[in-house]
């Protein structure tokens, strides 16, 4: 680490050195393409120095202070080769040197990153999708994964909620697991990172500044992911960050925006007037419990939120090296009062070639401080009586805020937003150094590469609740101070040998074999102090706490792997890839900790066949691919295979006897935990069949994929025979799950003239999952899942063999003639008696739809007319159902009957407007009325930009305005049809709509 820093400092210093020559002249000239058109922004470099410049709008350049004598200048331009010319410079004179650059076939070849290496796009045998920065989503984006939402077929990026910087659930081709994680593996510049959430931050990925990202590469099938073995089952997302270019002049880029956001839609709770009417009608005896205010608790809690973002980068390079330094600052308020996220980030990349390019060193170092202010949520705004006031000046016990002073009643959310402190910060640094050395001396085509990296995430979360917010009227204690720290580190060492050789004209072989070691360590010390003697110290008041509860949790796991890959290319027609990875994980017992993950794939490039000559007129590309492989999942937590004794904390002791003075003696007890000594890897076997095609010289191209993935030995926490283990449920390998789907991607370059261009990219994916087996659970049995708000232990979903994961499991509501559900007020059967036994009980619940979409799609349009550009992303899903828990838990009249809080005082709960249609008196949690079709189409973002012509000193300037989340088309009655992958809508943080005004400047 220290050495990396030293290196960085040394090279940074070198950049600042101005090369001084005694005798100097000037070189000027023009750079043009093969047609003689001026090339704007071509790089002109003085070979042997770090000095260079770029051509202006007319293709002209001037390079001053060139040392006299024979000099070499190199011109380069993206998509064209490097051209070097020699010229003699004389002291004090100006000489002219023009460059005409030809299109360079080598450079145009598209390369895609795969695990531990890269291949030409044509050689890829797996399903690999690459999204470059120009196609990223626009908007006030905090979390990097949001950049590609809707951009890749089969990749569902479901934002958890609308909180600033909130995390997303990412599903590549549906989830392959149920109990273990379904999140893909993230690899940043070759470094697999730890993506688990921490208390101090809304999303651990937020440390990465989106504007530092060059591309995302999504690996979807087993041929592509099996090289990551036990972590490949849910797909892999490789993030490549922007790098400095060799031989480029220093370029400075700035991007900044200001954003403003607000809620879209109405939550649907009754206002004070309607509420009073309902109480008058339904519970007139409770009218005296009402206040005389007209409070919209949502208005009190929501606000117009603003934010800003600034990113600055400098990149450039010399003959053998390139660098990029970036810094960013982002600050975004959330639309719920008090919520905010802030990021201060820096990034550094340096790469250098030594010894005639034999030794390549690439270093990345990036870090950020993220700071999150957490809101108290708006759950209470859904419940609170709208006739009650926000403030109650006489209520000193609650700081002048209105409060019922009872633990069963909803708490005043404004009081929480104003009085509570809940903030976290995380410092995350990730760095790695890749060293590649060519061993041609030993064997032609052989090279060795090592990658050493670290990922350190440290931070804290502080919570303070003053006694005027939390006291024994509403909780178990008076005031709270909580300090949670976290440290998560992971260290990586990879070493591998590459062998890349054309055996002869038609046979090309590429071999890779390596070793990887990665160790993860986590520590979570926590301090909680209750019963404060004063509120005056705020979060700094631990010493004022009468009762303190310290704790610490420590975890470690390690992954050691050996892996290899062979890519054999025969005559550019057939490409065969085989990979094998052997993973050892500390999460399994000695008998089963090593797992083997193989894959094989073959691709056939039809157009390379001699007989296919005729097809060349129609197709520009035609490739068939088939792959099969096995990947694993080990994301289950540590030490689950080991017998262990858990000690009780100070609040779970037990009295055994008394001491000499008659005081009780409390024993800290120890409990043996349940465990399965034979725990094994979860394994996913996947088959993929794909077709890639292109027409009209690649202007229209796309891919069609079919896949099936079967996960066996599903890790699952299941009920074991009572008495055979030390709990009712044990995590064990049981069950089987299948995902099947089809994906289609189409790219079209519809228009391409100097004045106008239009690119359209669309993707659509169909996925269906099915539980194939669950322990010995057969037939109609199943495992209830999907806990809802309302009662304890109420579940509305089920895992059942033959059905989709977490299918809704509800009663079929009988409808009146007007289409409304039969109310419990009427003396009629409410639900269909499915088993016709004359009574309605849980046996009459049935499977009804599931939360996963059948189809989801994305459409991206990039249009340019002269200096204007217009981009938009539309995203949608079909067949995803949502259980409207907000309505089911609040849409019934009993809510106004009041809850007795002693001394004959009552509080009433507000009612969801759905009650006006349903007329339900009691809650009907299990009615299919609440399972709604949440298919939607969302206009995710629209951006209109204008680019100014370059002027001297300014190579680019673009102003833009973006609208985010402007339109949603859906039949769903709740606030937002996207409620997270479990499909239960329960008062989430509302997703805002907003506008962004920004500028990008390049020097």
């Amino acid at each position, binding site marked *: 680490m220290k050495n990396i820093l030293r290196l960085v400092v040394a090279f940074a210093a070198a950049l600042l050195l101005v090369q001084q020559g005694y005798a100097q002249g000037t070189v000027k000239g023009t750079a043009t393409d093969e047609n003689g058109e001026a090339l704007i922004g071509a790089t002109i470099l003085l070979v042997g120095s770090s000095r260079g410049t770029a051509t202006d709008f007319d293709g002209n350049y001037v390079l001053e202070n060139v040392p006299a004598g024979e000099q070499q200048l190199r011109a380069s331009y993206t998509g064209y080769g490097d051209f070097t010319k020699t010229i003699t410079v004389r002291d004090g004179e100006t000489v002219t040197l023009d460059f005409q650059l030809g299109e360079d076939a080598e450079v145009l070849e598209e390369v895609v990153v795969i695990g531990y290496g890269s291949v030409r796009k044509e050689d890829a045998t797996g399903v690999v999708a690459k999204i470059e920065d120009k196609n990223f989503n626009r908007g006030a984006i905090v979390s990097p994964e949001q950049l590609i939402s809707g951009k890749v077929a089969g990749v569902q990026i479901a934002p958890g909620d609308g909180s600033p910087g909130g995390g997303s659930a990412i599903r590549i081709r549906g989830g392959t697991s149920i109990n273990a994680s379904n999140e893909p593996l993230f690899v940043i510049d070759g470094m697999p990172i730890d993506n688990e959430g921490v208390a101090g931050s809304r999303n651990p990925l937020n440390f990465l500044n989106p504007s530092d990202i060059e591309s995302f590469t999504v690996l979807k099938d087993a041929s592509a992911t099996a090289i990551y073995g036990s972590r490949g089952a849910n797909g892999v997302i490789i993030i490549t960050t922007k790098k400095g270019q060799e031989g480029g002049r220093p370029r400075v880029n700035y991007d900044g925006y200001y954003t403003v956001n607000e809620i879209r839609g109405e939550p649907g709770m009754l206002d004070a007037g309607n509420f009073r009417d309902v109480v008058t009608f339904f519970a007139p005896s409770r009218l005296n419990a009402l206040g005389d205010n007209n409070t919209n608790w949502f208005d009190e809690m929501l606000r117009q939120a603003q934010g800003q973002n600034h990113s600055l980068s400098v990149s450039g390079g010399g003959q053998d090296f390139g660098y990029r330094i970036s810094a960013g600052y982002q600050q975004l308020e959330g639309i719920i009062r008090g919520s905010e996220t802030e990021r201060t980030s820096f990034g550094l990349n340096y790469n250098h070639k030594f010894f005639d390019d034999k030794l390549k060193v690439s270093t990345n170092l990036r870090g950020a401080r993220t700071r999150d202010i957490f809101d108290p949520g708006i759950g209470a705004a859904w419940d609170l009586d709208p006739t009650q006031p926000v403030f109650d000046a006489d209520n000193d016990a609650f700081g002048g805020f209105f409060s019922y002073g009872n633990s069963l009643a909803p708490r005043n959310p404004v009081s929480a937003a104003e009085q509570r402190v809940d903030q976290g910060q995380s410092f995350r640094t990730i760095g790695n150094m890749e060293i590649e050395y060519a061993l041609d001396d030993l064997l032609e085509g052989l090279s060795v590469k090592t990658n050493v990296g670290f990922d350190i995430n440290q931070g804290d979360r502080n919570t303070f609740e003053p006694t005027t917010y939390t006291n024994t009227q509403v909780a178990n204690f008076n005031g709270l101070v909580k300090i949670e720290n976290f440290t998560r580190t992971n260290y990586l060492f990879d070493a591998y040998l590459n062998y890349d050789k054309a055996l002869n004209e038609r046979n090309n072989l590429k071999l890779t074999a390596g070793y990887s070691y990665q160790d993860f360590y986590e520590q979570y010390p926590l301090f909680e102090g209750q019963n404060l003697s004063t509120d005056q110290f705020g979060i700094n008041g631990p010493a004022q706490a009468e009762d303190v509860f310290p704790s610490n949790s420590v975890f470690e796991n*390690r992954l050691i792997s050996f892996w290899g890959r062979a890519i054999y290319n025969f005559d550019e027609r057939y490409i065969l890839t085989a990979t094998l990875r052997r993973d050892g994980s500390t999460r399994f017992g000695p008998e089963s900790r090593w797992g083997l993950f193989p894959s094989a794939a073959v691709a056939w490039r039809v157009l390379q066949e001699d007989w296919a000559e005729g097809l060349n007129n129609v197709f520009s590309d035609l490739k068939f691919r088939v792959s099969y492989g096995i990947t694993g999942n080990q994301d289950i937590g540590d030490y689950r295979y080991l017998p262990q004794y858990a000690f009780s904390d100070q609040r*779970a002791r037990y009295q*055994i006897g008394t001491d000499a003075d008659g005081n009780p003696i409390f024993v800290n007890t120890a409990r043996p935990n349940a465990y399965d000594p034979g725990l094994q890897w979860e394994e996913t076997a996947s088959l993929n069949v794909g077709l890639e095609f292109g027409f009209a010289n690649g202007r229209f191209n796309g891919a069609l994929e079919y896949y099936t993935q079967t996960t066996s030995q599903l890790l699952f926490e299941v*009920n074991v025979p009572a008495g055979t283990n030390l709990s009712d449920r044990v995590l064990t390998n049981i069950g089987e799950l299948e995902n099947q789907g089809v994906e289609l991607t189409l790219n079209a370059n519809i228009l391409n003239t100097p004045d106008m261009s239009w690119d359209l990219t669309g993707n659509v994916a169909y996925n269906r999952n099915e539980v194939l087996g669950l322990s010995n659970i057969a037939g109609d049995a199943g495992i209830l899942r999907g806990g809802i708000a309302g*009662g304890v232990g109420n579940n509305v979903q089920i895992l059942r063999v033959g059905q989709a994961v977490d299918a809704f499991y509800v009663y079929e509501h009988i409808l009146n003639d007007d289409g409304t559900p039969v109310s419990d007020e009427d003396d009629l059967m409410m639900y269909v008696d499915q088993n016709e036994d004359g009574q309605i009980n849980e046996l009459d619940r049935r499977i009804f739809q599931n939360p996963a979409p059948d189809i989801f799609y994305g459409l991206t349009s990039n249009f340019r007319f002269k200096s204007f550009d217009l981009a938009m992303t539309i995203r949608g899903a079909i067949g995803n159902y949502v259980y409207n828990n907000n309505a089911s838990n609040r849409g019934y009249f009993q809510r106004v009957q009041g809850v007795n809080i002693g001394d004959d005082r009552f509080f009433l709960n507000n009612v969801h407007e759905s009650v006006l249609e349903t007329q339900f008196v009691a809650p009907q949690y299990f009615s299919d009325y609440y399972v709604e079709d949440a298919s939607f189409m969302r206009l995710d973002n629209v951006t209109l930009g204008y680019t100014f012509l370059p002027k001297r000193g300014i190579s680019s300037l673009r102003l833009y305005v973006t609208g985010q989340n402007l339109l949603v088309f859906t039949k769903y009655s709740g606030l937002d049809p996207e409620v997270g992958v479990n499909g239960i809508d329960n008062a989430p943080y509302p997703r805002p709509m907003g506008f962004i005004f920004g500028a990008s400047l390049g020097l």
Partner: protein
Amino acid sequence: MKKIINIGLIAVLAMMSACTDLDVQPKNDLTPDVFFTDDAAYERFLTRIYAGLAVTGQQGPAGNADIKSLDEGFSSYLRQYWQLQELPTDEAVIAWNDDGLPDLVTQGWSSTNQFVRAMYYRVFFQVSLANEFLRESTPEKLDSRGVSKEVADQMSTYRAEARFMRALSYWHGIDFFGDIPFYTEDQVIGSTAPTQFSRREVFNFVVNELNEIEGDMLEAGTAPYGRADKGALWMLQAKLYLNGEVYTDGETYWNEAVDACNKIIESGAYTLMDEYHHNFLADNDRSTETIMSVNFDGDATQTFGGTTYLVHAAIGGAMNAENYGVNNGWGGLRTLPSLVDRFPDETGNIDERAIFFTEGQTKAVEAINEFTNGYTVPKYQNITSEGVPGSDPTFADTDYPMFRFGEVHLIYAEAVLRGATNGDLGTAVAYINALRQRAYNNDAGNIAEGDLNLDFILDERSRELYWEGVRRTDLIRFGQFTENGTWAWKGNIREGTTTSPHLRLYPIPAEELLANDNLEQNQGY
């Protein structure tokens, strides 16, 4: 230079590749090799078996749960034991709408009822803990670990207590579920599913166990508070024998029941408290009447089950929570007129055991979920006999009197009435009158031999032991739980109706039937 780099790189590669160490040890919990190096381990473990009746996990009040298939707060042994014994009877109703809870009141449960499931898994959690303790405390294991002589000397008592606690839970198991899986320390963790033993077989096992361990238990009244001694063992025997006819389908054990009662009485270790109500207050650890308790403490033993539940759930309406030593009421539990009417009056002025709160409450229960329907029962309170609130306003200090000396009087009398030949009616009447004199504070409530019959015993048990978790078993023994006897909301009818006799047993949870092929569901489910 290049050669050096080559060699260096290959050396590093070889070195690192040699590292395949995958033994990472847990840091928060202890593996058995580490745990048992401390002699205190055995007391910690044994105490956990006792605590299994009180706490729900290793973090108080909730966290690191023992039972995972339902909400942790609902998984308390005592809370579910109490609910399953009281809610389906004529003594209690509860207002809440939690899935399956109203079904307990109306006898409408099925095999997926989460509360039934909680009780079932709690029973076997206790059995598993005891089995594991017995596996880990064998003389061979102690020798191999080199434990101190002091600990080794205690181990026969510890092992006897573990077996006692296993017997206690097996008794609960057959009382609630009939034929149940049977499993001892002879099987290992993760072994194949246990087979189902008949209720009678398990009953016999428990009887034999108690006989075998009696000699190793501490003398009555000498165990440290919270642990079981011979007094607890005899009480368990008395209760087993009293219900032996139900468990064995016909065999009676009246003489054995009387023997067990006599042993308790003759030990002299227990006396009736002067004030009935002091058995249920925050300082009831000083009760001379408690034979075995489940211990709670506002600071040290926090849980949402146990007496915390019993105190809070019974408070609501016009009651002022502070009067009961807590900060709020949960507005759940009330009683039915059938209990109220068993007392000479509802104020408690005549029979002080009638502890009802009536202000703002109706006597009748028109709606189960309306808290103001039905008198409330502040029998358990988090306030001491001197009126001092417990140490914490949420979590009660009050201990739960699992076995109480008062009941010994009632068991003796009932066994004699039912045909025991080793007791006499005069003594039985005297024992009953001892309870009634305490309740009336004079002899106005005393009965004569002629008054003592089985109907009287059933009612007197209710007056003395209501809300103490015995009512369902009593009603079954007297044949009044299902096809005879009606009270409000029995069978989900407001006036009450008789129900199917299969409801005398709870169903084996659906989850368990799926996990264990060897089991047959109880008839009628």
